C-alpha cells in the first residue's frame, strides 16, 4: 500500500514536471481500435494493455519532440461495422494524429477507405491478409503475411525434418485458406507433396471423421492451419485415435493456452514465432516482466505486436522531426531495420513487414526454441 502510494506520488511529480516544462506543447493524440469485448476480447484487452504500457514508457522518457502522448481507445467488438464507425469518429476529431488497430484483417479492411480518404495513418499490429496493406498508402501492417511466413514452415518440414508427404487440415475462412495455400505452394516447391487436404467450419468440435480420413493417406506429418484452441482439440482427438506423427502449424498456435488445453497431445508440435517470451534478449525480458508485473498475465505474440506498434510510431515521429501527417507517413514507409520485439521491421513498397521467424517446439508442456 505504502509502496503504491509512493509510486503514485512519484508519477504525479514526474507528470507534473513534464507539464510545467512544456506547458505550451499539446500532447500527440493517438487512437486505438481493438475488440475489447466480444469473441476476440482476449486479444483486444492485450492490445490496450500493451499500448498503454508503451505510452507510459514514452511519456516517462520525456515524450517525442518534447511532446507527450495521449490515448483514446475505441471498442470495435471484432465487428467490421463498428470498426468503420470508430474510424469515422477518429478522422473527424482534428486532435487525433494517427490510429493503431484493428485486430482482424476484415475489420482493418472495412475501415481502410475512411483512413485513406482522411489521410490518417492506419497501423495494424496483426492484419496478415495479403490484400490489406497494399490497399491504401496510409495502411501499414507489421505482423508479416502468410506469404512470408509459410516458406519458413515449408523449409522446416523439408530440410530439417526431412518430411516427404503432408496432410493439411485448415479452418475454412479467409485466413485459413490463405495459410494452407501458401504452405502447400512452398512445400511442393521444396520437393514435398501434400497428399490430403481437408477443412472444417468455425464451431466444429468433432474432428474424428476428418482425422480418420486424413490418416488413410499415410502422410509423414500433419499441418494444422487453425487458431490454438481448435488445434488443441484436434490434437486431443488425434492422440485418442492412436495416430502419432509430427505436427506443424502457423504462428497462431503459439500460446500458453495451447498447452493448457492440449495437454500431452501437443508435445512435439512445431510452430514458428517472431516473438518468444523466453528469448534472453534483455529488451524482451524487460517487456515480459513489466507486463507480468503490471497486469498479472504473460503477454502473447499479439500483445507484443501492439507494443511494437506504438513504439514504432513514436520512432517514426522522432525521425520525421515534425508532427506532420504526410512527413510521418513517408518516414514510416521508409522504415529500415527497426529493432522491434517481434523481429526487425523493414517495410516492403506495399507497407507489409517482412519478419524473421524462429522455430519453437512444445517439449514436456513448454515451448522451447529449436536451434
Amino acid at each position, binding site marked *: 500500500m505504502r509502496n503504491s502510494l509512493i509510486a503514485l506520488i512519484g508519477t504525479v511529480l514526474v507528470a507534473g514536471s513534464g507539464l510545467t516544462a512544456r506547458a505550451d506543447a499539446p500532447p500527440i493524440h493517438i487512437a486505438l481500435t481493438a475488440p475489447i469485448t466480444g469473441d476476440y476480447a482476449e486479444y483486444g484487452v492485450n492490445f490496450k494493455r500493451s499500448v498503454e504500457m508503451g505510452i507510459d514508457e514514452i511519456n516517462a522518457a520525456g515524450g517525442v519532440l518534447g511532446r507527450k502522448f495521449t490515448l483514446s481507445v475505441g471498442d470495435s467488438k471484432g465487428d467490421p461495422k463498428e470498426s468503420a464507425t470508430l474510424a469515422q469518429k477518429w478522422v473527424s476529431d482534428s486532435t487525433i494524429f494517427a490510429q493503431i488497430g484493428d485486430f482482424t484483417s476484415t475489420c482493418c479492411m472495412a475501415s481502410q477507405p475512411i483512413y485513406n480518404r482522411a489521410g490518417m495513418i492506419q497501423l495494424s499490429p496483426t492484419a496478415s491478409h495479403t490484400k490489406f496493406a497494399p490497399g491504401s498508402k496510409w495502411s501499414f501492417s507489421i505482423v508479416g503475411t502468410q506469404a512470408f511466413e509459410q516458406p519458413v514452415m515449408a523449409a522446416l518440414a523439408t530440410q530439417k525434418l526431412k518430411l516427404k508427404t503432408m496432410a493439411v487440415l485448415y479452418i475454412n475462412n479467409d485466413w485459413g485458406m490463405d495459410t494452407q495455400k501458401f504452405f502447400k505452394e512452398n512445400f511442393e516447391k521444396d520437393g514435398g507433396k501434400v497428399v490430403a487436404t481437408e*477443412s472444417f467450419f468455425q464451431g466444429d468440435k468433432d474432428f474424428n471423421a476428418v482425422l480418420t*480420413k486424413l490418416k488413410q493417406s499415410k502422410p509423414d506429418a500433419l499441418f494444422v492451419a487453425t487458431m490454438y484452441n481448435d488445434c488443441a482439440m484436434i490434437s486431443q482427438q488425434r492422440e485418442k485415435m492412436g495416430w502419432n506423427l509430427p505436427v506443424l502449424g502457423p504462428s497462431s498456435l503459439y500460446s500458453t493456452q495451447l498447452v493448457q488445453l492440449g495437454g500431452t497431445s501437443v508435445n512435439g508440435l512445431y510452430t514458428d514465432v517472431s516473438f518468444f517470451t523466453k528469448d534472453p534478449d534483455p529488451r524482451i525480458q524487460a517487456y515480459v516482466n513489466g507486463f507480468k508485473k503490471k497486469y498479472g498475465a504473460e503477454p502473447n505474440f499479439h500483445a507484443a505486436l501492439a507494443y511494437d506498434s506504438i513504439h514504432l510510431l513514436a520512432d517514426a515521429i522522432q525521425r520525421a522531426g515534425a508532427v506532420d501527417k504526410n512527413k510521418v507517413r513517408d518516414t514510416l514507409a521508409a522504415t529500415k531495420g527497426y529493432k522491434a520485439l517481434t523481429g526487425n521491421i523493414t517495410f516492403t513498397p506495399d507497407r507489409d513487414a517482412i519478419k524473421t521467424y524462429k522455430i519453437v517446439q512444445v517439449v514436456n508442456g513448454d515451448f522451447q526454441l529449436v536451434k
Partner: protein
Amino acid sequence: MFLQQLINGLAQGSLFALIAISFSLVWGLLKMVNFALGEVYMLGAYAGWLVVMHVTPNLAVALAAGFFAGWAAGWLIEKVAFKAMRGVPHIASLVCTIGFSFFLKEMATWMFGAETKAMPSYYAKTAFTIAEANVSWLQLLMVGIAVTMMILLQVLFYRTRIGLATRAVALDFRTASLMGMKVDKITSLAFSLSGALAGFVGVLAAIYYNAVNPSMGFVAGLKGFTAAVFGGITSIPGAILGGYLLGGLENLSVQFVSSGYRDLVSYIILIIFLLFRPNGILGKKTKL
C-alpha cells in the same frame, strides 16, 4: 476405415440422440420447441467442469452436477417462457426461449470468460479393436447411456402412473385438467427433465471433446433438433434413431465426399427424406 467412420458416427450420434430426446420431451407435451436447450447443454458442461476442477475428479458427481444444473435451468425456462405466458400466442414463448439462449450464453461468458477451458479425459483407453478400428471405453459408455436413457424414459411414460398422466396431458391438457390431473406440475416436471438431460449430455460432450466454452451449445442444439425431426419428433425411440442416423451420415459424407461438404450432404439427404416422410422415421401423423 469404413468401420472406423461408423464408430465415430455412433459416438457423435449418441450425443445428437440424447439432445434430440430433450427436444422430443417438450414437443410431445406442448408442441413447442425450447430453443435454449443448446445453452442448457453448455451450462451443464460448465457445471461438470466446475466439479471436476474444484470439488472432485469423480465422473459420476460431475454428471450429476450437469444433470441438476440442467434441471434448474429447464425449470426456470418453463416458469418464465411458458407458465407466465400461457394464453398468449405460442410465438411469444418461442421468442422467449431464444432470449434465454442468448442470456445463458452471455452469462457464461461473463462468469467464466470467453476462452475455451480444458476438461480432463475419462475412459479414453481403447476397449477393443476390430478390423483396425479402435473403440474407446468412453464411446461404449456414451452409446450405453443413450440406449439406457431411451429405455428408462419408455418405461417412465408407458409403465408408470406419472407417465400415463404425462401422456394424457400431451393428448389434451384441458380435459386432463378437468379430470383432476395436475397439469402445471406435470409440465414443469417434463421441462425440468428435458433440461436435466441436456445438462447431462453437456458433461459427456465436454469429456469426449476435452473442452468447454460458452458457444459450444449453438451447433449442438441445432444438430439435436435436426435429429429429433429426422427421427419423428413425437417419438423417443425415433429421436435416438434420428441421432444415430445423422451422426452416421455426417461421418460417412466426410469419408466419401469431403469434409467441406459434410453438412451439405447430410442435410440434402435429410430434406429429401422429409419430403417423402414428413413425420420422420418413427413419427406418427399429427395435425399441427
